[in-house]
């Protein structure tokens, strides 16, 4: 048995869930009867089997996740969006400080300035999805209650997507010279929140058995 085959079998043994190690030992033993090329293919199969067995219990097919996983999801998606919303709305350069005089002086005369101020104002409103999503997600993580208001969830998803698409198109048409949409910002502030909103909406449609969830507030100590 060559080193690569041994390494793959050893890795498979580490990945295989403890309750199924006998099956890994079975595959390992079987490989001892094979020629080197066949043993290598066999060991790859052992690794695939171990990975499948490790991940299969996670794949419930209904997107139910532990509340801890949801906590990470919502902090990643809505926490960042909430911070961005706070900055756009109330930060040092936030729209709350933008008086008509400031807009008239610094935005309207510059190329693409109108586009920028309009997008800032729209983002200050649509950014509310951040704290709303944070609250809905935290409620699910803490109480196990997913949002059931489908219309609200669809509206929030639609607003984020619409703003992104219309904002990008408008950016090319009337935005500042050299406008280029940022893929990173789109992922962070559109795609991630949309994904988590969809996830929450899906959980609300198929409420899990409360007993199957681990409360986020227990088991930490």
């Amino acid at each position, binding site marked *: 048995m060559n080193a690569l085959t041994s390494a793959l079998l050893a890795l498979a043994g580490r990945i295989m869930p403890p309750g*199924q190690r*006998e*099956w890994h*030992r*079975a*595959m*390992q*033993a*079987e490989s*001892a*009867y*094979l020629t080197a090329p066949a043993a290598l*293919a*066999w060991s*790859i*199969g*052992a*690794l*695939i*089997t171990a990975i*499948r*067995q490790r991940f299969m219990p996670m794949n419930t097919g209904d997107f139910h996740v532990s509340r801890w996983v949801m906590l990470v999801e919502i902090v990643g998606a809505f926490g960042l969006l909430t911070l961005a919303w706070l900055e756009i709305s109330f930060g040092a350069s936030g729209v709350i400080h933008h008086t008509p005089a400031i807009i008239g002086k610094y935005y309207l005369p510059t190329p693409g300035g109108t586009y920028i101020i309009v997008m800032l104002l729209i983002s200050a409103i649509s950014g509310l999805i951040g704290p709303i999503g944070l609250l809905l997600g935290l409620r699910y993580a803490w109480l196990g209650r997913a949002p059931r208001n489908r219309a609200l969830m669809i509206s929030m998803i639609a607003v984020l997507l619409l703003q992104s698409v219309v904002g990008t198109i408008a950016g090319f048409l009337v935005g500042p010279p050299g406008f280029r949409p940022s893929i990173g910002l789109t992922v962070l502030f559109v795609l991630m929140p949309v994904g988590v909103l969809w996830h929450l909406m899906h959980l609300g449609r198929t409420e899990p058995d409360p007993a199957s969830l681990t409360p986020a507030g227990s088991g930490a100590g």
Partner: protein
Amino acid sequence: MPRARRSSGQTLTLLRCLMDQPRKWHHGYELSKDAQLLSGTLYPMLMRLSDRGFLEHKWLPSQETGKPPRHVYRLTARGMAHAREQFELSDAAGVRPQRSLSRT
């Protein structure tokens, strides 16, 4: 009474291999060759059959010196009944095994 769920073509092939000589203990590589299944496909199927009580397994000491014991498999009585039921279902639906069997 709930309707029996039909097995996949690959599972049918494996069941046919096991049913070929139902009292014989088969080892993994032999099943892999006969059913023309890769190990990464075969073992999850064996594990599922075992979990459902359709397959029994044991360790058989090697007849070759210096080689480890082999894990061997055969269908339980329930497994044989399940296999026959699956064959009938597949025949009724016109489903063929995934690959032709080497011994048929």
